[in-house]
């Protein structure tokens, strides 16, 4: 039984990663799961300087999901390199750093700073719906996405994964723009913009008014988008959106994803990542499938 996959030359023990922003830098969930078991750890978005994030309430529950408007609170790249990357060095797990910024220059600053570190890949967050400037603006227009991808590729020493927003008319346009500009892979989906109103108070529940929807509620949308993108581009895809079990993860892989990320479900079940890996191994065994790679995009075969 072989669960290995590779993305842009980076070998992963298995295709199961953490989704950015739902797993910190692994410190908190290292008490629940053996981080060495994971295919990769994708860290919380980090910017060139500390970001305070949005006012609270930042999170709320919705049916089979949740809305968040954290606003990318992060300590900035300096603290991140000294503390978080130092912590992760002790683990035998590839680290993918999620990068955010308000301008192209800010993204580039982080990308360059990470150049001489042991980080395996960079995931560029151009799809966070919760910050006013930058971020999503780059992710909702194909030409803007092309431009920022191209600039980042010029400076990046590691493979570049562009993280796509589902809040667009046609996600395949975005996938194609990223590929054309040289992206090594794409990841999707980021959260779907949503809103919740407290009827008793006649007010928005979230201080930011809108938030990003994640969790099992978005899974069918995410699977569909992964499938569409798998047909639009030939670079590898990291699929995510509401994965809770191995079956959920396999849906993404069968739709065309090479790897998957477990996100908000970590909050409901802190053991979810390893349970997905174990379930996947069982599936391969039970169905006498030699390698997980046979399943990538298999629905069309």
């Amino acid at each position, binding site marked *: 039984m072989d669960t290995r996959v590779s993305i842009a030359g980076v070998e992963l023990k298995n295709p199961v990663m953490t989704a950015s922003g*739902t797993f*910190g830098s692994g410190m*908190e969930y290292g008490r629940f799961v053996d981080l060495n078991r994971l295919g990769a750890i994708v860290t919380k978005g980090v910017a060139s300087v500390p970001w305070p994030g949005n006012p609270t*309430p930042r999170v709320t529950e919705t049916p*089979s999901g*949740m809305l968040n408007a954290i606003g990318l609170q992060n300590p900035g790249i300096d603290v991140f390199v000294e503390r978080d990357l130092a912590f992760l060095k002790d683990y035998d797990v590839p680290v993918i750093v999620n990068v955010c910024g308000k301008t192209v220059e800010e993204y580039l600053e982080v990308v360059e700073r990470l150049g001489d570190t042991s980080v395996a890949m960079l995931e560029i967050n151009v799809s966070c719906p919760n910050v006013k400037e930058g971020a999503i603006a780059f992710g909702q227009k194909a030409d803007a996405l092309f431009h920022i991808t191209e600039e980042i590729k010029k400076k990046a020493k590691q493979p570049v994964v562009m993280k796509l927003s589902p809040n667009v008319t046609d996600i395949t346009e975005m996938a194609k723009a990223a590929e054309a500009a040289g992206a090594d892979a794409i990841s999707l989906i980021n959260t779907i913009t949503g809103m919740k109103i407290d009827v008793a108070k006649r007010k928005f529940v979230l201080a930011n008014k809108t938030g990003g929807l994640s969790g099992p509620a978005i899974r069918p949308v995410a699977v569909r988008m992964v499938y569409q993108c798998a047909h639009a581009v030939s670079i590898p895809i990291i699929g995510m959106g509401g994965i809770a079990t191995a079956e959920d993860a396999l849906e993404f892989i069968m739709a065309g994803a090479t790897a998957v990320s477990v996100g908000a479900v970590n909050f409901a*079940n802190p*053991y979810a990542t390893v349970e997905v890996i174990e379930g996947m191994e069982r599936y391969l065994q039970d169905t006498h499938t030699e390698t997980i790679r046979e399943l990538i995009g298999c629905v069309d075969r």
Partner: protein
Amino acid sequence: MDYRKKETTVVVSQKEISAGIFDLRVRTQAAAYCVPGQFAGIFPPSDSRMLMRPISICEANAESGEIRFVYRVAGEGTKLISALKEGDTAELLSVLGNGFPLDAAEGKKVAVMGGGIGIPPMLYTAKKLAGKTAETEIYLGYRNNDTFLASEFTPYGTVNVVSEDGSTAYKGNVLDALKERGFKPEVIFACGPMPMLRAIKRYAEEAGCIAYISLEERMACGVGACLGCVAKTVNKDEHSHVNNTRVCTEGPVFDSREVEI
């Protein structure tokens, strides 16, 4: 050693002790690792509810292996939890948060203050402070004469029951009663609604005493990973260096001088 697990616990009992206020007891080894002021995440028994409900530990007994929660039905999640019966299972994420620094009360004159549904964690706090302090005065604020839990505080100090409508010994809020009695605490431990905590913060600054207050915030992970639950801090926070600290991890209990509320 601290304890942190998500596990399936067994409900020992649950009863409604007052209108809409439930007393839930579950069996878990976590009971041996709790500190007053810490909390647990209780998952509503429903597949479509993915987040835990943070509920303070009202009592924990290492011998019987039981944790007790006293909570108000506030919405759908707590309503679902309130339907749990003896023998049912309850999904619990525990033990969470920092808890009250009980050592700060050693040999001091201490006021234990609870308001409304902030009273349950103060029962455990008062119990664990017994014998440590020079003097403990307990102030419990209610809306009316529905004074759930109040009688259970008696062994742990002088209990002063305050109500907004004046139907108990003192009328007004917990600080009104404290001033009326002329009690001058050196340390305050408090949990309750935000206006009460703000007033206590102000009082502590004026009176020159130290107040440890327990804050509430919306949470997702409960373990410090999502940054959903932050409170504004005066100084740079440990995690992100942006004066926004995690209530679930660095809190819920803070020295009132450290937070902007």
